[in-house]
């Protein structure tokens, strides 16, 4: 039998929630461990096997000069590199710093800011190294994570669709809450993958999976204004976990510009 592929899980600026999705696999985790050597996963075990690794899952964004170097090292050690979650794929909620002066924030947050070495921006991994696949979500969901690992093991393309959340709502039979209740919803501009959970509980989509393949944010913003959504709420809808993604960032800049 050929040797099992080696898996490494890396953390950058993030909350650990996406890595936890792997531990959250519970029942399937044994099957994963059966097919793959979990060689470097600090959250699960301090027993680390040295690289190189066949598959690296990278969580978190790049916010420090140190991490900017570290990700290059991770890339060098990884045959296949998959970024997981909104931080790694779009910069995460911490990309809100991209709209401000970080030095100013440092002086407010830290007693001795001179000890802090940080970048002015929070950026996705793909801005620093070549990546092989991006798995979206805040957090990612375990079904999609398993699908991606599965596809890697079986040498096939993962079944991860870049279309809107709306298609998932319709497939599960949820009546559109924007049409029926006038609830502001990011679903039409957000990528599917979560299974359209929030609208099925009468909550508008929060946009956790970031922009879908062809996001028309201007048209959605225009309609939401007609629905009476206040400007500050509109901004909040786009200024979340995926604010660093280009089309959401542009939507924010446009709304702020139009507001002035």
């Amino acid at each position, binding site marked *: 039998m050929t040797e099992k592929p080696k898996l490494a899980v890396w953390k950058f600026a993030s909350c650990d929630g996406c890595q936890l999705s792997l531990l959250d696999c519970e029942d399937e985790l044994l099957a994963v461990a059966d*097919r793959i050597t979990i060689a470097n996963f600090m959250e699960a075990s301090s027993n680390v096997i040295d690289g190189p690794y066949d598959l690296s899952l990278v969580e978190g964004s790049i916010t420090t000069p140190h991490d900017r170097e570290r990700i290059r090292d991770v890339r060098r050690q990884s045959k296949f590199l998959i970024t997981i979650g909104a931080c790694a794929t779009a910069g995460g909620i911490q990309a809100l710093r991209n709209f401000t002066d970080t030095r100013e924030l440092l002086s407010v947050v830290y007693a001795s800011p001179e000890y802090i070495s940080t970048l002015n921006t929070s950026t996705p991994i793909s801005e620093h190294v070549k990546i092989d696949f991006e798995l979206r979500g805040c957090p990612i969901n375990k079904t999609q994570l398993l699908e991606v690992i599965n596809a890697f093991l079986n040498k096939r393309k993962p079944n991860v669709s*870049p279309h*809107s959340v709306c*298609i998932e709502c*319709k*497939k599960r*039979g949820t009546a*559109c809450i924007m049409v029926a209740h006038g609830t502001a919803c990011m679903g039409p501009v957000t990528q599917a993958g979560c299974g359209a959970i929030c609208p099925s509980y009468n909550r508008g989509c929060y946009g956790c999976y970031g922009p*879908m393949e062809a996001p028309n944010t201007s048209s959605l913003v225009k309609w939401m204004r007609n629905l009476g959504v206040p400007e500050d709420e509109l901004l909040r809808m786009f200024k979340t976990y995926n604010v660093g993604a280009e089309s959401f960032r542009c939507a924010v800049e446009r709304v702020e510009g139009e507001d002035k």
Partner: protein
Amino acid sequence: MTKPNNAFVIQREDLHILFDVLIERGYTPVGPTVREAVIVYDELSGLEDLPEGWAEEQDAGTYSLKRRGDNALFGFNNGPHSWKNYLFPSRVKLWEGDKTEDGGFTVKSAVDTQKKFAFIGVRACDLHAIQVQDKVFLDGEYRDPIYSKRREEALVIAVNCGQAAKTCFCTSMNTGPRVSDGYDLALTEILDNDQHYFLAEPGSTSGFSLLAEIPHSEASQEAIAAARGCTKQAQEQMGRKIDISDVKEMLYRNYDNDRWDELEKRCLSCGNCTMACPTCFCSKVEDVTDLTGNHAERWREWESCFTMDFSYIHGGSVRPTTRSRYRQWLVHKLAAWLDQFGTSGCVGCGRCITWCPVGIDLTEEVRLLRNSEN
């Protein structure tokens, strides 16, 4: 024209027996019911699940429930669901395969264990939509086995519309508001002062045999006239219209119209219209494996011509812009469908207008395209 001896009257208080008989005969009744302030289709346990006394207000991009002020059971128009949710399920397993110890593999077709449906309250437009999908899934050399089994077993209890929504335009598409054929039993609900009854017109032997178990009487000329009055009222309330004369040629002539650029600005490419449309039939197949790699499954899921994957071939998507995807959808629906299936792909139900999150209205778009030629 229905002969008088083919029309009967069922009193409101006897209609619950219809459900009893259907369930007794092994059918799963599916029909309208209120959920989360929307009239959706779901499995019904009996007459009490129907949206009694409810109506809705709908327009481009909006839908809201309201009280009618009477006890009508079918006093509303189509909601977000259509019968394709049941005949052409959104996700279904086609087959599964397992590796065998000798290095080969076995393949086993999935078995559709769905019980037979009785569709309650099928409107004229939706009956036409079912007939459109029949052409797609049943005609020709390759019949779709999932659709075909569900369709053959399904019983259709149609309801003639007594009202129309602002988004309805079945009269323009010649599909309603009165059902013409393709039903087992057609009901027209009549509320007249203190009277509440249904004109029941069987359309098949199953329909006659159902009727035989429900108390009924022969319909009077007055009852028939009252029923015709109902559908006439719906016809007069028709909220929208579309001029379909030479629509095929008109759309084919306007491939490069600037109007498509305007649509590109508004359309979200979200796919809601295609999912809500009762005739849209596109699907994709996906293969999944388990972690061991010894077990594989093939699943079929609804797909939309508004996604990039839909037209993806080596090198990229054939329709990379929203403009091209909207044009594909509209031109296929109203024009190319005629060449492909000999019928329009639009039945005038208005779902794509109501359930578009930004209220794009195809009747308006056709009018604007037409006007731009003058």
